[in-house]
């Protein structure tokens, strides 16, 4: 087992455990914090996949903004009754079953896929993926349209969030 694989397995274990905790823990803030741990795990995976930019973006976007938003939301809607009661609803067993089944199904299907266990090809030297990504995002024949659409989406979401949660002054 190469060190990288070791690192991968360790980080994978941490991430999955954190994910389980996110789902199972009773206290919502703890769930948010475990989510942050999971996100860090995912960031590490990005680094392992040689996508450094993604790791940082993950940290900035997810942890910096989204996680904090979650914690804010949790605090704003904090009601003691909710924290203590059982956090899983009636259908949770069924949900668990579905989750496990779908995991088994996914893995089974993926294993059918020939390229399932393809090895990592060496990164093509030369072009730095970041530069390549930057140009791709803004060059008209590549991904400028989704990029612009994403920007419009973000603006819309911002406005939407504000209007929805704006408390009407009496």
């Amino acid at each position, binding site marked *: 087992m190469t*060190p990288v694989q070791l690192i991968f397995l360790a980080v994978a274990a941490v991430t999955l455990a954190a994910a389980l905790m996110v789902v199972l823990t009773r*206290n919502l*803030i*703890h769930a948010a*914090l475990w989510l*942050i741990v999971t996100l860090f795990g995912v960031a590490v995976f990005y680094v392992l996949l040689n996508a*450094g*930019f993604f790791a*940082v*973006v993950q*940290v*900035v976007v997810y*942890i*910096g*903004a989204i*996680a*904090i938003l979650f*914690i*804010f939301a949790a*605090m*704003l*809607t*904090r*009601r*003691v*009754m909710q924290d203590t009661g059982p956090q899983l609803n009636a259908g949770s067993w069924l949900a668990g079953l579905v989750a496990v089944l779908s995991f088994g199904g996914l893995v089974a299907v993926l294993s059918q896929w020939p390229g399932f266990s393809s090895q990592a090809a060496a990164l093509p030297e030369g072009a*730095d993926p*970041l530069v390549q990504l930057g140009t791709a995002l803004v060059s008209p024949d590549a991904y400028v349209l989704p990029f612009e659409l994403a920007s419009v989406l973000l603006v819309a979401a911002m406005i939407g969030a504000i209007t929805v*949660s704006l*408390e009407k002054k009496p």
Partner: protein
Amino acid sequence: MDHPITIIARWLETLMLGWGLAPGAVTTILTLLGAAVVGAFGLGLVIFTIWLERKLYARIQDRLGPNRVGPWGILQTFPDMIKIFTKEFITPDGADKVVYNLAPILSVSAVLLTWAVIPFAPAIIGTDVNVGVLYLVAVGSLGALSIIMAGWSSNNKYAMLGAFRAVAQMVSYEVPMVLALLIPVLLAQTMKMNGLVEAQQVWFIFYVPIAALIFFITSLAETGRAPFDLLEAESELVAGFQTEYSGLKFGMFYVGEFLHAFTISALTATLFLGGWQGLGAERFPILGTIFFFIKTFAVYFVVIWIRISLPRLRIDQLLNFSWKFLTPLALVLLLATAIVEKLWLDLYPSLNLVVGAVPWVHAGVHFVLNLLILWGMLNLLKPHKVKTRRTVAEPRPVAVAPEPPVSEIS
């Protein structure tokens, strides 16, 4: 002539190889050792900067400052540390143990992480990540996280409110900071910190002084010092999110804060004052480090100067300043610079300038642009000047939770 650090590193490498370690193991050890060195340097520096700040603080206020312990009180920080170490750890009842203890660690580690990417000398840098600048932003947001965890876990309403305010402040200042950061990246066409420094034949401050100013102000707000030190203002919510902390945990927060102040001055130096750029820096890396520290301490002096002289801002003024002034200014500046940069890249070959003069002319063009924007900004603000002073903005709560019925509060 190599930088002493590289000399030591190379000496250690040959030593370990000598011991017969596997080359892979050697590199990991070396990287770990390097990280340890950078961490220790950061913490060690804090001790000195605390003293420096208290001394300067006193001198500006026309008083002596600490002069009892060691010559000119230089060792004053050590008795403080001993005091703090001996203080008793009081954890509030009902506090969220894990989160409560994790918060201070996270705040200090967040600041230390930034030092990984700061280039001390042409070759001396933690890890030259190609997304260096973005890494800075990411680490910055971790700080906000620690504050929230502290505020929430201490099970104290004031602590939580303080945490809310702090986070609101940091999040809203993060936006202009990132925009300001983009401008040097735009000019240097790379996010590598080293790349940035190398691109600064002419310091970026001469290219885009406004961007430098915006970055300096927003990073001040990030640290929560000086005019923006609402976090633990004495006159406000007791000690903000630190109220429930005592002893070493409080110390950690204190150290984190001071180190953060020093860090932002280092960043400002590297991004806008050319980092280790200087005469002969190329050839004598040690000179680079000296230049870097001179610039950093200069900026640090300005930081302390501002902290002592400027009064505190109210929370709404603070937020308005960020959202209604800094962000639009940064956006305009970014847009203008991008356009001018594009034009410049297309046109400057046709100007057939002397090779040496190209950066200077480039800087001049951008400088003129910045002056223009400054003039435009002043004009825009002129009508508002009087009005802003007269109207008193009524407090706008950021996000207020509805009062839960009395009976249910435990």
